[in-house]
């Protein structure tokens, strides 16, 4: 097997010493806003936004310094403090700043900062705005802990932290029962994934006695194949939970109950990609186990098709985007599962996707802002006229995601499809097919929202959003255009210290597979236009008996399956046990008590209160004892 040449980490110097500031700034501000209460209502959102940009500045400075260093010195590990140590195990809190994590930090703080600015406008009239920003800051801090951790346990702190922030933000409008339920669902399904994470961590401790990335990476090759597979599958389970991959995908669609900036930041750009990060970070484990790798490929492929399927059949604009997110993360998973050839492409697509999907989600939010928070695309139409900036930026995002030549998605997705064909023909065909479906449903979304006749509900007056919301859109749109071209030939070399050196040809001139992709995408767009562009779109979803449509509209029956497999048995067992405790176990206890009570009731009848009967008892007893004594004496 091909052993990886990863770079040994070195101690922190220079700006790396201040890496902790990235986490501390939003964390402290979140604390201030939550504890400070109403006092901070007036300026809390500004402070929160500032905190994110401070983090971004620190990340940028570190990035610059890393850039200027020789390749061998780009991986830096800094020890913050000893979290706890027990027996022979020690769990330090440390930061691991390498080319991979710094890219994530830039994505999180950059997109996060833009979304903070956008939220200033989006949440302007919400009475609980301060709390919203506090939770957002909490999320950014947790996400940074996740990507900057130097061992799996600290990563797990961030992992759970983002889960908490996601829960809090999904159910932010908690007076809506659907939102509250969606938050709980997301958290619990993530916890199911966390079983995998914790088991992976336990196994690593049992195998290596340490959870440091460095130790695990170096020791992975010596693992028994069985354990390597187990750890790999455990990690994959964790990744599935966080990244909404099949079979733990059902929470992501419900998560759209949260405010739109949350969907953009957490459920599109950053948190849901944590699973990809995890797989890439643990590449050594997966390389030690072809079975686990194959499982990643399967999960990725299935999800990329499942997400696209859902995206085709939803009328809720946010749910279409959510399905699309699932699908795109499926691409990343697929790339990460392919092996050394795919890591850089997975991260590449992750970054470009972060830009264009955040752009589109925020665009959707801008549309909703103008349409009285309606999300049903059948009530939209012809909005390109009224929301010019939103339309333009959304359009760029659209072109980027379908892979229009020379926009960012074109580069990143093509590489994945190509790599998939090299690794596994089935996965490759599926990925190619997925690209076509992506083009189809995104075209459908564009046509239903921005073109065609106006199907607005009464009393709706679409208008362009304020500047504080459109400027982040413009910035993200620019990034959606240029990010791909900027990083295309650079990303593999840059990530080399983190994931090893696996040269893979990239060029701007399409290969045969690239041409095929372009053709499939064009077909998808064409079909989309044929179905939704030529005829008026009905304002009420036509009932359909087409099994594909029905299944898609019901989220592939994910909820029904979960209900049958997990929820119903659990709730049944819970009710049964509570009942059994009360009537079974406690019944036995009470029965014993009752038996004693009955016995004593009978015994009490001897106590009749007549002195002479007591005397008789005494005499009888006396005689009895006397007889006994005499008998024993005689014997």
């Amino acid at each position, binding site marked *: 097997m091909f052993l990886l040449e990863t770079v040994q980490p070195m101690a922190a110097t220079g700006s790396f010493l201040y890496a902790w500031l990235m986490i501390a700034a939003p964390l402290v501000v979140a604390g201030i806003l939550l504890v400070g209460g109403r006092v901070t209502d007036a300026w809390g959102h500004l402070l929160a936004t500032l905190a994110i940009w401070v983090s971004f500045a620190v990340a940028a400075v570190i990035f610059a310094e890393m850039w200027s260093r020789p390749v061998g010195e780009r991986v830096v590990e800094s020890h913050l403090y000893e979290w706890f140590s027990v027996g022979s195990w020690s769990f330090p809190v440390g930061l691991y700043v390498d080319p991979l994590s710094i890219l994530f930090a830039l994505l999180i703080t950059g997109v996060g900062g833009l979304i903070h600015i956008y939220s200033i406008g989006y949440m302007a009239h919400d009475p609980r705005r301060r709390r919203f920003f506090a939770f957002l800051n909490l999320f950014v801090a947790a996400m940074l802990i996740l990507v900057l951790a130097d061992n799996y346990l600290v990563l797990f702190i961030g992992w759970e932290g983002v889960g908490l922030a996601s829960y809090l933000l999904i159910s932010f409008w908690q007076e809506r029962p659907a939102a509250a339920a969606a938050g709980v669902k997301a958290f619990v399904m993530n916890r199911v994934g966390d079983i995998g994470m914790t088991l992976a961590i336990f196994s690593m401790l049992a195998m290596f006695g340490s959870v440091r990335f460095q130790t695990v990476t170096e020791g992975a090759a010596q693992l028994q194949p069985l354990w390597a597979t187990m750890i790999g599958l455990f990690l994959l389970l964790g990744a599935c939970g966080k990244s909404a991959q099949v079979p733990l995908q059902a929470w992501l669609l419900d998560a759209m109950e949260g405010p739109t900036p949350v969907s953009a930041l957490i459920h599109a750009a950053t948190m849901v990609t944590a699973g990809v990060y995890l797989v890439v970070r643990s590449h050594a484990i997966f390389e030690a186990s072809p079975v686990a790798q194959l499982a990643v490929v399967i999960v990725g492929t299935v999800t990329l098709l499942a997400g696209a399927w859902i995206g085709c059949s939803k009328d809720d604009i946010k749910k279409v985007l959510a399905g699309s997110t699932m699908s795109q993360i499926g691409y990343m998973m697929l790339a990460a599962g392919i092996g050394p050839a795919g890591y850089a492409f997975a991260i590449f697509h992750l970054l470009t996707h972060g830009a264009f999907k955040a752009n589109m989600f925020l665009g959707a939010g801008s549309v909703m802002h103008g349409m009285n928070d309606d999300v049903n695309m059948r009530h939209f139409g012809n909005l390109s006229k009224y929301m010019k900036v939103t339309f333009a930026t959304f359009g760029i995002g659209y072109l980027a995601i379908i892979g229009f030549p020379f926009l960012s998605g074109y580069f990143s997705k093509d590489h994945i499809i190509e790599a998939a064909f090299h690794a596994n023909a089935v996965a490759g065909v599926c990925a190619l097919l997925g690209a076509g479906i992506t083009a189809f449903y995104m075209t459908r979304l564009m046509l239903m929202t921005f073109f065609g006749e106006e199907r607005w509900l009464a009393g709706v007056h679409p208008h362009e959003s304020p500047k504080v919301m459109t400027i982040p859109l413009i910035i993200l749109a620019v990034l959606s255009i240029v990010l791909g071209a900027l990083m295309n030939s650079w990303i593999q070399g840059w990530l080399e210290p983190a994931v090893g050196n696996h040269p893979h040809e990239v060029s701007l001139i399409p290969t045969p597979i690239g041409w095929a992709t372009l053709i499939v995408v064009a077909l998808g767009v064409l079909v989309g236009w044929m179905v939704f562009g030529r005829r008026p779109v009905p304002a009420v979803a036509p009932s359909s008996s087409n099994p594909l449509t029905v299944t898609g509209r019901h989220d592939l029956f994910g909820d029904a399956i979960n209900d049958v497999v997990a929820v119903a048995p659990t709730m049944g067992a819970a009710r049964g046990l509570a009942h059994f405790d009360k009537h079974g176990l406690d019944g036995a206890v009470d029965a014993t008590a009752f038996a004693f009570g009955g016995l004593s009731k009978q015994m009490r009848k001897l106590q009749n*209160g*007549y002195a*002479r009967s*007591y*005397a008789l008892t005494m*005499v009888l007893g006396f005689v009895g004892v006397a007889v006994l004594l005499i008998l024993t004496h005689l014997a």
Partner: protein
Amino acid sequence: MNPENYLILAAILFAIAAVGVLVRRNALIAFMCVELMLNSCNLVLAAFAQMRGNLDGQVAAFFVMVVAAAEVVVGLAIVMMIYRTRRSTSVDDANLLKL
């Protein structure tokens, strides 16, 4: 005289007294029967002292007498009180000795 005769007498006295406690309803009679039982015991104690040739039994008999005197005082007071409230000294009328 054969000292065992004392013991037989004591046993007969005790039995008479026990039957008296069981069959008579009047509290005063029952009381007297109890005293009779105590005295039969005293007789036994004195007889044993005589038989063994030391004073232990007689000392014990004195203790019994003292206790019996104290008991009579308390017992009669109780009988008095019951008679005042119930106008009766029948032991069967007072069946409050139960839960």
